[in-house]
């Protein structure tokens, strides 16, 4: 029954859309089937969605002539324009800062601009001419492009933890971050200085600088004031230190460790041998239960008794 109704509905749509006037007729005649369609919301939306696809040719000309009150106001389209510019500026800043990661240090101000304009768009305060752009720009269609674009970048900002390194109103980097960067620079200068020649030299001379950096980093980790820039910089420095310059601790105590552990492993053998040899074996005393004699003898007893 239902598919048949749906089919009917499609047919009406196809017939009536070109001349829009018969809209009432559609509603009247489809009212029977509409009840059933409402019960299945997903189906009914599917039907509506497919409407433009049926006759794109006809609807094309209709789009350009919406009545005024449906059009976006000039004020809003201006806002949209500015949003676009700042968006582009931020993305342009982000891409070159991808590797090595400097997204927080270099782009916090452009991000601030973007946030500002978005807040303007999304605020419900009236602009000039008593218009608010929130509804018209952000949520008048299914795609919600402006919102999506912004929220993508916002989640990027959140993932990168940049807020931890930037002051509250996105004015500048925090002191902690600046201090870390300074310490990092010292270490890197040290690395550069000794990079030529023997790496053992480097390991020895830069150890204090690297150590300070490490301590600072773990302290910041504890306070959770890390953003992606710092994490990445630290990761790279650590990799340089451990992998490129090979300054990790060497495994050089094999002999004492092996000696101690073989001593420990030897103890149980002694223990079990000695308890096997010296401890007296536990014996169990067998008890002999009282049982009836076998069949024949039992008979004998009973014979005797009776």
């Amino acid at each position, binding site marked *: 029954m239902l598919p048949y109704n749906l089919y009917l509905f499609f047919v009406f749509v196809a017939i009536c859309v070109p001349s829009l006037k018969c809209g009432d007729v559609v509603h009247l005649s489809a009212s029977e089937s509409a009840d059933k369609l409402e019960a299945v919301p997903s189906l009914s939306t599917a039907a509506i969605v497919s409407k433009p696809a049926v006759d794109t040719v006809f609807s094309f000309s209709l789009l350009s002539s919406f009545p005024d009150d449906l059009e976006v106001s000039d004020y809003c389209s201006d806002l949209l324009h500015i949003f676009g510019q700042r968006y582009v500026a931020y993305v342009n800043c982000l891409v070159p800062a991808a590797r090595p990661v400097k997204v927080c240090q270099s782009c916090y101000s452009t991000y601030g601009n973007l946030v500002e304009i978005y807040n303007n768009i999304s605020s419900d305060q009236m602009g000039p001419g008593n218009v608010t752009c929130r509804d018209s720009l952000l949520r008048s269609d299914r795609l919600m492009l402006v919102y999506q674009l912004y929220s993508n970048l916002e989640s990027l900002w959140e993932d990168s933890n940049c807020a931890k390194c930037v002051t509250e109103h996105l004015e500048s980097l925090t002191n902690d971050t600046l201090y870390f960067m300074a310490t990092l620079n010292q270490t890197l200068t040290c690395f550069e200085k000794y990079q030529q020649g023997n790496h053992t030299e480097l390991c020895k001379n830069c150890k204090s600088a690297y150590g300070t950096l490490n301590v600072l980093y773990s302290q910041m980790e504890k306070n959770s004031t890390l953003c992606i820039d710092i994490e990445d910089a630290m990761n790279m420095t650590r990799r340089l230190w451990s992998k490129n310059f090979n300054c990790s601790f060497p495994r050089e105590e094999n002999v004492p460790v092996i000696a101690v552990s073989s001593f420990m492993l030897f103890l149980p053998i002694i223990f079990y041998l000695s308890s096997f040899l010296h401890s007296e074996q536990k014996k*169990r005393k*067998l008890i002999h239960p009282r049982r009836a004699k076998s069949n024949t003898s039992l008979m004998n007893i009973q014979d005797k008794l009776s």
Partner: protein
Amino acid sequence: MANITKKVSWSSRGDDSGLAGEGTPLLNGTEIPKPSRQDPIRGRPKEIPHNEKLLSLKYESLDYDNIENQLFLEEERRMSHMGFRCLEISRWVICGLIGILTGLIACFIDIMVEKLAGCKYQVIKENIEKFTEVGGLSISLILWAVLNCAFVLVGGIMVAYIEPIAAGSGIPQIKCYLNGVKIPRVVRLKTLLVKVLGVICSVAGGLAVGKEGPMIHSGAVVAAGVSQGRSTSLKRDFKMFEYFRRDTEKRDFVSAGAAAGVSAAFGAPVGGVLFSLEEGASFWNQMLTWRIFFASMISTFTLNFFLSIYHGKPGDLSNPGLINFGRFESDSVAYYYYELPLFMGMGAIGGLLGALFNSINYWLTIFRIRYVHRPCLQVMEALLVAAVTATVSFTMIYFSNDCQPLGPEHNEEYPLQLFCADGEYNSMATAFFNTPERSVRSLFHNQPGSYNPLTLGLFTLTYFFLACWTYGLAVSAGVFIPSLLIGAAWGRLCGILLASFTPTSPIWADPGKYALIGAAAQLGGIVRMTLSLTVIMVEATGNVTYGLPIMLVLMTAKIVGDYFQEGLYDIHIKLQSVPFLHWEAPATSHWLTAREVMSSPVTCFNRIEKVGTIVDVLSNTSTNHNGFPVVVQVLDSDEPAKLCGLILRSQLIVLLKHKVFVELARSRLSQRKLQLKDFRDAYPRFPPIQSIHVSQDERECMMDLTEFMNATPYTVPQDTSLPRVFKLFRALGLRHLVVVDDENRVIGLVTRKDLARYHLGKHGLEELQLAQT
């Protein structure tokens, strides 16, 4: 001709073989040893080394069967309808209390272990970090070993010197108790204390053990204690729940306690109920099931609630059990039909490894019983195991080259860097340098690629032997978690290998999923539980879709494992010489009749018996009988006595203590009549006969047993087959079964030990021997 019947090979009583000629060849070609024991000129008792084919005299049956004597009938008549209602309500109250207390104990254990182990690992970690830089890591190794030993020393001393019954997981003991065997001291308060503190020590001491098995024992003790409304150890009587002071009620509550323990340990309330059902499957009823379920639910809820408070999130009920497998929810852990054969293959591996584990542990346990029986030796052994565990772990970590980058969310509780590059941690350390529960969870849930195949292989190998060596030590500790850990390690290894064999790494080869399957297989291979284990695993993972694979895996593991060796708990029950009645009588035993099974002749009492005779019989140490048929002499003294009732040792002792003698009753008419309450007050620790003083005059008095004996004991004719007798015992929970002839004359008595001694061995039906242990 004379020697066609030989002793079967298990018997060490070779010197009897001269008598074997009298034997009658049996129907199925096997022979039972000749009942030649009434030979009057027998030498002194033989001594043999301990082995698994013995039955110990120290274990007795529970008196599950109700004693319907006149006192009982009178009390029932006096009790109002309301009284029965109150009893029913108080049963529910007790079950609720059991759940709450068990949950609290689980909570206490969890928090203590977390704190102590946390401190220990923190100290060692700092030490290792310090010495990695300046050298001297062997000192860290010694520190680790010493810390481990210190914890284990405390636990070991408590167990070995204070309460040896608290050793091990306690599951074998509880299994026996539910089966109807009274294990001495198993449900005492002292045992509970030693158990709880001992398990904290042994887990914090870094042994390859878990805290889940002991929870079941703890729950059982709680149940036995709460339901009695008093503590004999503390000498406190709260005058509550007096009606429940008998074995029947107590055993029912103990099964609720065991279920509550399982449910607190694994967050598996249904699994707990099924555990009790599986282990105590005879004598069971539906109301009891429902009550047990109530206790289980309350227990897991209590644990959950208090842990949520401890973790600072009151009301967040997401810690249902001590072990939390975490959630398997992402898409990659779904399974496909073509994986089922793989799972079953893993089940078979689990069965094989489990059988190997059990065999090694079997030999080790025999060695321990024979040679390491002195408490000081037992403590030393535990210390050595603790030290070696630390050493092996350290060496593995030290020589491991498997470095993994630190994750952003720090799954690793105590990441050790050692010789890894900065920002990386030693992957072997996540497996060894952690409490076993956390290791299991990280094996289940860490990202693919966080373990090397080599690391996992080495870990499986070492942990297998460590766990095998550890189980059976004189520390209280369970085997569930080590089994899960071994299985999870090799299961994850399987997952990784599968992914590497197939060219395009398929989405289904998720190592975490295979770790879970491996864990189930290994655990099933070792403990061989079926239904309850499946449900426990399903509940612990919180994912019902894994029901089918886990069931298949456990089935395969059990089938494969049973082919080689019994389950670990059954082995330990056997080695403790417990008269355990299995679900069925041995298969080829229908030709055995009650006449051959029973003990005979039987010590009987007359209905009106002389006190002296009773005292003499009771104090005879060589025959430690517990039930005595009461017979009545027909006036014509030629006729042999006929059965008219059954009386228990405990009843006789109470009667003697209260001096219920015919002569005294005449002289002191005002004397209070003995009530059922007097018997209950003496329960469960009836004084030994030696402590009761009977004067010479009193020995001449007479005692009338009519009122106190069970007037309608179960009897069977002498030609009843063994399986029929067995069924009576198993289904009714009998303790004594009188064998009578066609004129109702007592000719023998069947007890649990008479039945439990038959078992199906390699050479057909074999018989176990009774021994003093």
